[in-house]
């Protein structure tokens, strides 16, 4: 097996035993990038020299007899939403073209400290607003399973990079499904951690009460390895939780007997493609065969998730992207301006793409005098009802199961002109962000020649349990070992 086909765990074992060096592993991944990147277009920037330098340092530490840790020398791709010191961070937007952050996001710094060479920054929907990566201001990323289809979004570049063997691991961010949906569409395992589990410091904000960073990998074991690096309290993010981090890898016991799973009726009905539904039912039956007790559960308010999401997310987004004003960083208009307000308006009108402009306008509208109570406050109240539905479901069930995406990957351009249709791609993932809980997507079959993802949701901070369920499924099945052919 070639180095770029191995999982992070397998690479870590070979690096620790001295069978391969970190430089060899990194070079093998850049050779793969050179081969397939012209087809996939997953990256906005490659950081070859820095990655090789990091790899050399890891090799030096191992030669000196140190143990630099299980992921030292394992390459990683980073979504361009995360600040990387000295390396251009655009967030997929012309607004931030040329922006070189003076600091690392905490998630990035933790990967660096773990000795993981960063291969590059991955493409994404502008400011993480989208479900196909077609809203990038720079390029269209293609799904390695079928180059005519989207990889999902907004973390489509990270998903495509791992699915194409350009990196064994990647970081993404998830506000309404932006890790899980592309993981599903590209046949990967991807985890949206509990709100507060991973620091948001240096994660360029979209919707601050919903955003979380998390891992993409080929299997759940690799997600667990990377979560062990990412999780934990960070003084620089006051919303990061001071909750002990368990040993995620040790938690993968393969034993799920006696666990109780609920299948929300509302997330298995209307709008779910029949082939996807049949595939999910088979996966649920497989887990039942492993000893889990499964029953249907009703969560009536979950049906309102989509409108709640785009009122809350756009309101928070409108506030967050107010910082891009052409003064301290980012695009500044070259048109003549009358005053500083005119400078703001023209710079912003030019720097943001159409989807970002739409969301700023919706969010500003929902927060404006006369509409605040009817839209924003109403959405926050219905959010409470949705969260209550989850609390009630988790009182009786350890995990909840449903599709990650209602369909397999769709064609490039197929939904690009219809923002409402595009948002329907997120109906199964959005409720999770509104409730703040963790959820994992794992590949569980194929439909129309494309991967289908099973979503496993858990109680707050139960990443260990949902990964145990996902790993048990992967120990019993082989879907996660399938690879896109390029």
């Amino acid at each position, binding site marked *: 097996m070639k180095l770029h086909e191995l999982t992070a765990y397998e690479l870590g074992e070979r690096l620790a035993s001295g069978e391969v060096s970190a430089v060899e592993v990194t070079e093998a991944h850049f050779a793969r990038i050179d081969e397939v990147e012209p087809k996939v277009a997953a990256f906005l920037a490659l950081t070859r020299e820095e990655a090789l330098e990091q790899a050399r340092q890891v090799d030096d530490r191992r030669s000196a007899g140190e143990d630099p840790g299980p992921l030292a020398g394992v390459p990683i791709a980073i979504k361009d939403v995360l600040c990387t010191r000295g390396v251009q961070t655009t967030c997929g937007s012309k607004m931030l073209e040329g922006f070189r952050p003076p600091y690392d996001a905490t998630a990035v710094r933790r990967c660096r400290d773990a000795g993981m060479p960063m291969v590059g920054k991955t493409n994404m929907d502008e400011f993480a607003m989208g479900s196909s990566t077609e809203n990038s201001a720079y390029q269209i990323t293609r799904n390695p399973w079928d180059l005519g289809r989207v990889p999902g979004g907004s973390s489509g570049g990270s998903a495509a990079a791992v699915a194409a063997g350009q990196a064994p691991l990647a970081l993404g961010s998830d506000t309404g499904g932006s890790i899980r949906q592309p993981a599903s569409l590209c046949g990967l395992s991807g985890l949206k951690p509990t709100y507060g589990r991973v620091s948001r410091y240096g994660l360029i904000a979209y919707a601050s009460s919903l955003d979380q960073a998390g891992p993409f990998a080929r299997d759940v074991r690799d997600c667990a390895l990377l979560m062990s690096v990412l999780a934990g309290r960070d003084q620089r993010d006051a919303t990061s939780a001071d909750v002990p981090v368990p040993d995620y890898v040790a938690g993968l016991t393969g034993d799920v007997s006696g666990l109780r799973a609920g299948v929300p009726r509302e997330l298995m009905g209307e709008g779910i493609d029949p082939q996807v539904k049949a595939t999910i039912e088979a996966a649920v039956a497989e887990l039942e065969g492993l000893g889990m007790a499964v029953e249907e559960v009703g969560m009536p308010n979950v049906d309102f998730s989509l409108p*709640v999401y785009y*009122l809350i997310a756009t309101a928070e987004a409108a506030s967050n992207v107010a910082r891009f004003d052409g003064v*301290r960083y980012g695009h*500044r208009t070259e048109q003549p301006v009358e005053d500083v307000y005119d400078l703001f308006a023209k710079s912003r009108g030019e720097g943001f793409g159409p989807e970002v402009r739409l969301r700023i*306008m919706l969010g*500003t*509208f929902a927060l404006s005098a006369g509409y605040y109570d009817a*839209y924003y406050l109403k959405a926050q109240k219905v959010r409470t009802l949705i969260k209550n539905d989850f609390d009630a479901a988790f009182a009786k069930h350890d995990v909840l199961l449903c599709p990650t995406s209602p369909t397999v990957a769709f064609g490039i351009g197929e939904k690009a002109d219809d923002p409402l249709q595009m948002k329907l791609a997120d109906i199964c993932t959005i409720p999770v962000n509104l409730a703040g809980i963790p959820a994992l997507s794992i590949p569980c079959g194929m439909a129309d020649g494309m991967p289908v993802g099973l979503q496993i949701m858990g109680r707050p901070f139960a990443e260990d349990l949902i990964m145990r369920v996902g790993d048990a499924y992967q120990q019993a099945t082989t879907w996660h070992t399938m690879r896109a052919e390029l």
Partner: protein
Amino acid sequence: MPDVARDVVEHVSTLARLALSSEEIDRLQHEMGRILEHADKLQAVNTDAIQGTSHVIPMINVYREDQVGESLTPEEVVANAPDSADEFFKVPRTVEE
């Protein structure tokens, strides 16, 4: 909801400090209207006596000691500015002499 009224879109664009072309206002009248129509589904939900959720994980105030830590140099802070002079961000004149 039909299209959002043009003057409402123009007012919101002023609040958002977002310069829009005339065609863009046409587009937004339609697209905002379509999404807000969908959002109106929420009006049917009974939320009497329900508190809004702005933060999902129970958390009280977070305190820490006020200690001097690492910080950026002024040069680093202005390094990404479109226009700067010495250690300052430069913007057009806002106050008349």
